[in-house]
């Protein structure tokens, strides 16, 4: 719809600006709070909307840990960010690798019970981690994977969603392409590597963004399988700053929250072009 009427233009701008404000204001507030001192936040009613002057020291404290002016001990966020990054990467890459291969098998190979296999993968869509959390915990614990990266990531890697997305994509690849590759002497794996993978690049990018954020935002599962501090991901770290009877250093909490927001935001911004293409593109 392309219309140029001033009233309509104004209205759409108002709506859009309202939308931006609603989304951006909490983030701004987080930023503002992270630049003030804990005392300012605790005493000011309401919280000042202007940035304070304690930005550098707060972020240094949040990243590297140490004692606040009120004496409470802040654990360093940097190692937790690292744990989150590693887990999110393993989860995203693992999910994509496994889903690509299983979708490849389901679409391009005729084997007994193919339909059953597909539907059993598909049905697990109904069983997210939260539903199967106790048996999964039992398995992970029996395998001695508590407090390891494997324990943090492996149960989250299997993904019906990604398998399904790749299956749908593979189904749109014309049969003639497969046949041309056969005539060109490309075996199944070579076809996968030379033709299917390059064609799936945008889908892979889109799924990487989604799955990276999914992995990064995990909270419940790490809460269960990690008991040692060196395997706490950042999302748990934020929560840990708030619990306790002691005075909460909201400036540090907000700084940590912003730090935790940064990597997923970076992934989205850097891969935005591919992300949109992968979700929208049907051209082959």
């Amino acid at each position, binding site marked *: 719809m392309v219309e140029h009427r001033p009233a309509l233009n104004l209205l759409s701008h108002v709506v859009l600006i309202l939308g931006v404000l609603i989304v951006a204001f909490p983030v701004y507030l987080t930023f503002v709070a992270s630049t003030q001192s804990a005392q300012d936040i605790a005493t000011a009613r309401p919280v000042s909307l202007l940035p304070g002057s304690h930005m550098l020291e707060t972020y240094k404290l949040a990243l590297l840990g140490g004692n606040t002016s009120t004496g409470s001990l802040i654990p360093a966020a940097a190692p937790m960010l690292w744990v989150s990054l590693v887990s999110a990467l393993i989860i995203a890459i693992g999910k994509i690798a496994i889903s690509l291969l299983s979708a490849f098998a389901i679409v391009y190979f005729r084997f007994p019970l193919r339909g059953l296999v597909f539907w059993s993968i598909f049905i697990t869509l109904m069983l997210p981690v939260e539903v199967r959390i106790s048996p999964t915990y039992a398995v992970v614990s029996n395998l001695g994977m508590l407090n390891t990266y494997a324990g943090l990531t492996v149960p989250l890697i299997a993904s019906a969603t990604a398998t399904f997305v790749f299956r749908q994509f593979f189904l749109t690849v*014309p049969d003639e392409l497969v046949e041309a590759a056969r005539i060109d002497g*490309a075996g199944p794996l*070579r076809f996968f590597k*030379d*033709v299917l993978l390059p064609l799936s690049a945008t889908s892979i990018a889109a799924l990487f963004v989604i799955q990276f954020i999914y992995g990064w935002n995990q909270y419940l599962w790490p809460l269960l399988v990690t008991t040692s501090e060196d395997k706490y991901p950042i999302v748990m770290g934020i929560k840990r700053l708030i619990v306790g009877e002691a005075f909460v250093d909201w400036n540090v909490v907000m700084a940590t929250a912003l730090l935790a927001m940064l990597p997923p935001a970076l992934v989205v911004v850097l891969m935005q072009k591919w992300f949109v293409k992968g979700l929208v593109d049907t051209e082959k």
Partner: protein
Amino acid sequence: MASISLRQVVKRYGSGPSAPTVIHGVSAEVADGEFIVIVGPSGCGKSTLLRMVAGLEEVSEGDIAIGGRVVNQVEPAERDIAMVFQNYALYPHMSVFDNMAYGLRNARVPIAEIRTRVDKAAGILELGSLLDRKPRQLSGGQRQRVAMGRAIVRQPSVFLFDEPLSNLDAKLRAQTRLEIRKLHAELGVTSLFVTHDQVEAMTLAQRMVVMNGGRIEQIGTPEEVYARPASTFVASFIGSPPMNLLPGRAEGQRFTVGTATLDLPAAAPRAGELLLGVRPEHLQTQAQGWALRTDMQEMLGAERLLYGQVGGLPLILRVDATLAPPAPGQTVHVGVAAQHLHWFDPQTLKRITP
């Protein structure tokens, strides 16, 4: 270079007695270096047959031999063939060069050799300036040429074409048709060309195979097939407008069609129910002869088609466009020479010799 033999080839989808059969025991011999066109209406099994030669479909029964070697169990890449697909099936993410080189790379041809072969093919097909482009940056005709280039660089002993011209516009199609003929004259590679377009079939074929319902109706040169169609199917499929087919009763030199009785220039091969075939261009208006009531006419430029009825049955007549057309409803008299009569059995629909 290689000959191709099809021996009682059957294609069935699935197994068991109720499995649908799409090819019913087809046999044919293709000589080394020959250009064969397989033509037929859609669903007649012509593409399936080609895909069986390519190795993309399994052979249910019978043998396919290329160059004397039975290839039923041989992978497509090992059959020494190259195929041009209807929608070209170019790899969309590869450049034109890579598209052509891909098969050679898989066959571990040395890089220098790949370079020479691709350059040579690109030269023949005038693709030299496009080698770095991606398929989506090419026009339909250029994509078609890349698909041919991909086949040429493999230096196969058999080319297989699966309706490669049907996605081109009419002008480009005529031009590409000529290029394919030129290419065949130059390379002399045995070629199988599948099409549903009878003009393509007539112009390209050294010999053509007319298929219908999974069976071969006739094999022969375009001239033979046109002049002596082996069945009513071939008679009406090849030629535009199709051959007139009049069912009637023959008795010596008389033939009763509907309400009319026609005088024949020569006696019918036998008395009784027969089908008489006459090509529209072989009917000539004359002072005396079959009474044809004209209904309408079509002007085609060099010639004019007259649609009429004889004895209540439709008859098409092709006449010189410079002659004044009869008014609709007017009766004209037409005649035909003895050698242009075709007789078919109304039961088997096969040609009755002569």
